[in-house]
């Protein structure tokens, strides 16, 4: 098997940065970690930045006058600057730190639920999402629709795992207040077309929210080029720690829209009867933020930028193309999602004959191969394709063709086991 695909990164060097990739599982089997769409592993640089923060600089941010408080604040705010630059935000004040992408999306939904005109979502308005959303981009909008009386609508999917945009103009209408969709699907791997949706949304004056959780870790992300109003993603899928997410929003919207969580940090002045609020982003960051996690995310951004997002995207493209070719050789294997590597992320879902994904995943695990099984928090996708669940392999900058080979060998073994 040839392991020199064009575009590959020097994974031997990169893997040295990730301590966990050197451990073994189940009595000495090397770990083949193919569950990156659920969470990525962390390089030494991120772990060190977080340790150093706690060992040398920790204090609460934005309030002390002592050295540690100033250092902690500088590190926390420095991470914001790094993230802003990573997504090409026009201003660092447009970057709000949250707990994860789910919280980011819930935050937008709540801003709109409590907003005044012209943003207010109410019973005369509509919310548009898609059938390939993660539950985190479905349930907050269901809440908003149920609480305001707004109508929830969605784009369907084509048989080959793409968004069906044939009824774009009927779905997004002058009643639409917000359109929220995923940039890269966490199940299908589909990389969705942004321009047509954004253009139509802008025509009718609807806000556009993009869930970039599966895009930010894997490809250059430019919020200005996307043309969206809000972009959400999470830190732990992009080499950062858990507990830190990002919501980018256009400055004028962040100024106009109301805060959601109240508390310390987000205020300007407080009396017993009312308060005024700090300017964005602090307006949306009530309470002590995840400081060490932000520092870790800043280090992750440095790490990814040091390698180069274009190069990471090219590497994953090569691995995905190879994986799709090799998986096509496995009898009874059906790819759920686009079968070509065009407009596609490094996530490949499939079914294997009648063998339930839980059984596939369990037998792969015993061989040291970590995949995700189930409906991947996107149950409507499984319903759409008439399957109970899928097995999902997802790759990252440290994934190798040899790991794809191990997966294919593992699947052959699974077939034998249940055949």
């Amino acid at each position, binding site marked *: 098997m040839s392991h020199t695909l064009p575009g590959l990164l020097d994974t031997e060097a990169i893997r040295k940065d990730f301590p966990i990739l050197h451990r073994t599982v189940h009595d000495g089997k090397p770990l083949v970690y193919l569950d990156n769409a659920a969470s990525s592993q962390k390089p030494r640089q991120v772990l060190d930045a977080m340790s150093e923060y706690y060992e040398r600089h920790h204090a609460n941010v934005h309030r002390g006058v002592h050295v540690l408080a100033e250092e902690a604040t500088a590190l926390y705010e420095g991470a914001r600057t790094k993230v802003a630059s990573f997504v090409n935000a026009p201003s660092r004040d447009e970057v709000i730190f949250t707990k994860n992408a789910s919280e980011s999306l819930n935050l937008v939904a709540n801003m709109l639920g409590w907003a005044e005109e012209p943003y207010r979502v109410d019973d005369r308005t509509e919310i548009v999402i898609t059938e390939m959303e993660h539950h985190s981009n479905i349930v907050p909008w269901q809440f908003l629709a149920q609480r305001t009386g707004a109508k929830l609508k969605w784009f369907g999917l084509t048989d080959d795992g793409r968004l069906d945009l044939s009824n774009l103009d009927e779905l997004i209408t002058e009643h639409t207040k917000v359109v929220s969709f995923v940039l890269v699907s966490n199940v299908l791997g589909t990389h969705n077309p942004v321009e047509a949706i954004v253009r139509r949304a802008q025509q009718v004056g609807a806000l556009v929210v993009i869930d970039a959780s599966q895009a930010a870790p894997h490809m250059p992300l430019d919020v200005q080029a996307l043309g969206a109003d809000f972009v959400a993603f999470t830190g732990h899928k992009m080499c950062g720690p858990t507990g830190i997410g990002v919501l980018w929003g256009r400055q004028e919207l962040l100024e106009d829209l109301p805060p959601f969580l109240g508390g310390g940090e987000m205020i300007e002045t407080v009396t017993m009867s009312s308060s005024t609020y700090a300017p964005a982003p602090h307006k949306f960051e009530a309470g002590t933020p995840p400081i060490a996690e932000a520092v870790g995310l800043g280090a992750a951004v440095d790490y990814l930028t040091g390698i180069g997002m274009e190069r990471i995207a090219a590497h994953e493209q090569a691995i995905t193309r190879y994986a799709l070719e090799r998986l096509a050789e496995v009898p009874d294997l059906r790819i759920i999602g686009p079968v070509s590597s065009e407009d596609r992320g490094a996530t490949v879902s499939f079914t294997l004959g009648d063998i339930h994904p*839980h*059984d596939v995943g369990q037998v792969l695990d015993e061989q040291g191969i970590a995949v995700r099984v189930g409906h991947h928090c996107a149950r409507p996708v499984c319903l759409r394709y008439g399957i*109970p*669940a899928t097995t999902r392999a997802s790759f990252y900058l440290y994934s190798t063709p040899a790991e794809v080979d191990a997966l294919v060998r593992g699947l052959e073994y699974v077939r034998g086991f249940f055949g």
Partner: protein
Amino acid sequence: MRLEAMESMYQDVILDHYKNPHGRGLRDGDAEVHHVNPTCGDEITLRVRYDGETVADVSYEGQGCSISQASASVLNELLVGKDLAEALAVQDTFLRLMQSKGQITPDDAMEEVLEDAVAFAGVSKYPARVKCALLSWMAWKDATAQALGDGLVNERTTS
């Protein structure tokens, strides 16, 4: 390359029940329940029919992994024909085994009660799969309570 741990989970008995399930398909019943295992999407629709306090039939339809499907098949084989108190005792023993985190090695007494269901002992070591094994058993107890009433079920529960 069959591994020891895997063998203890995927016993031949389990694979046999998975490939040739007993009593599968929905038939007439006194009560019907639908249970899901949200972590993996296993689903079962299960009906119970009672003749007095005797389990006359347990019929089911579902989708899921080998463990959940085999477990439903074993349940059907074990419980049909038993009276309620006996069936509840089997259910309780199976529950105890599955919640043992691999700490219980079934002895002869347990094997006598559980028959083929002792093959699931290995599954109890895998927390993510215990719910798969218990899905049909929880559904059966729920359906039984609906068919006969909570009061009677509690009265006939010995433990």
